[in-house]
């Protein structure tokens, strides 16, 4: 049997007057629960966000402080000189003048005379910036000397700037044909944000720099007299292209 429950104003007021003393604490608990969801949890999230932002800011500050220390400890004149040396070793463009100077100096130092030479310039429109490969300027040249003279020339060239690599050697009696590649690499666009760590020149890199500097110092242009081929007993004519 269904029982009807009537809940009129009178009943409500009777219920209220009996239970009103419970209303305040229940309301307090309900408000507290609402506050937990509406205020405490967002505040807690804010705290976690703040902490993570703080640790990120601390990390960036530390990096920037280190960067500043590194930069402050660098002598700008030395840095410029080192950069010049490194750019002489690996120029950013095809540097014909340096190549000719280097070949000439190597010939002078090794007391050999040079014959004809031919540049292989390649595709000028081709861009190789940032490709990881080293583009090169190829040159084929004739050394008017046998194995010993060619060897002296190669040793001298290997310790010269700009850096080169001998691709092929063809020694035939009193003259040799050499194919040499002189490397260059265009400078890539450097994207640097203030908070990315600056890496100073490492000990290994300093070693390389010292090696390059020693090669660079020995790379000075020889006196014109040293370019004149030494007297030869063979019939081949000694002509110097430079």
């Amino acid at each position, binding site marked *: 049997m269904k029982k009807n429950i009537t809940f009129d104003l009178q009943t409500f007021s009777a219920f209220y007057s009996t239970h009103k003393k*419970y209303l305040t*604490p229940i309301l*307090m*608990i309900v408000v*507290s629960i609402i*506050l*937990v969801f509406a*205020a*405490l949890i967002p*505040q807690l999230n*804010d*705290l976690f966000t*703040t902490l993570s932002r*703080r640790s*990120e*800011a*601390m990390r960036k*500050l530390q990096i*920037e*402080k280190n*960067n*500043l220390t*590194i*930069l402050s400890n*660098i002598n*700008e004149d030395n840095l*410029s000189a*080192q*950069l010049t040396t*490194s750019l002489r*070793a*690996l120029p950013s463009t095809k540097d014909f003048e340096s190549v000719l100077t280097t070949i000439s100096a190597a010939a002078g130092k090794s007391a050999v005379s040079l014959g004809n030479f031919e540049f292989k310039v390649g595709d000028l429109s081709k861009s190789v910036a940032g490709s990881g490969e*080293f583009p090169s300027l190829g040159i084929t040249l004739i050394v008017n000397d046998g*194995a010993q003279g*060619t060897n002296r020339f*190669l040793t001298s*060239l*290997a310790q010269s700037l700009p*850096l080169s*690599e*001998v*691709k*092929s*050697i*063809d*020694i035939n*009696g009193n003259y040799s044909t050499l194919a040499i590649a002189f*490397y260059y*690499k265009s*400078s890539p666009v*450097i994207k*640097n944000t*203030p908070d990315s760590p*600056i890496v*100073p*020149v490492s000990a*290994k*890199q300093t070693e*390389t*720099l010292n090696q390059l500097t020693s090669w660079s110092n020995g790379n000075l242009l020889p006196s014109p007299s040293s370019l004149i081929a030494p007297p030869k007993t063979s019939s081949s004519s000694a002509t110097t292209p430079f």
Partner: protein
Amino acid sequence: MNSDINLVSGNANALDKGTKTLRRLKLIGTVVIVGVGVISILLFLLNRLFSPDSIIKQQNQVTASISLQQAKQAKLLVLTQRLNDISSLLKKRANYDVALNNILSQSPSGVSIVSMSVDKKKISIIVNSSSLLSLNDFIEMLKGMVEKKQFLKNVTINNLGLSGRTGYVLTADIDLL
């Protein structure tokens, strides 16, 4: 005495129970709301305390100092990058001069190089000598260099013959390490 008929005592118990519940409720309500308030204030204070604003301000000052040395920074970046390139270039480039120097410096006297071709880590060499003993010394020298793994990996003697004009001629192919 039957307690069931003691109406006063039962009513007093019920009242006591209601008061206790009310007290408990009031206590819980007060503790909870005060607790929420205290935690909220604590969280607000912690948020203020750990605010990264001061660090960001300090960071901006350092950034400003670094930007004064921007040229130096750019030079350093280019230098380190170029030195990395140079190191890898020096590591990968073929040092034919060293191999050639070794062969020439260790060649026995009386042996002269007629022709030599070096390409892609391979040397083709033709030498001549008036003495077979000298040529034997030359072969022994090459063999020794292969055994010691001194720039040479493999030597193949292609031909050893007698030429009327120049004496004995030896043709060999050498693979470089």
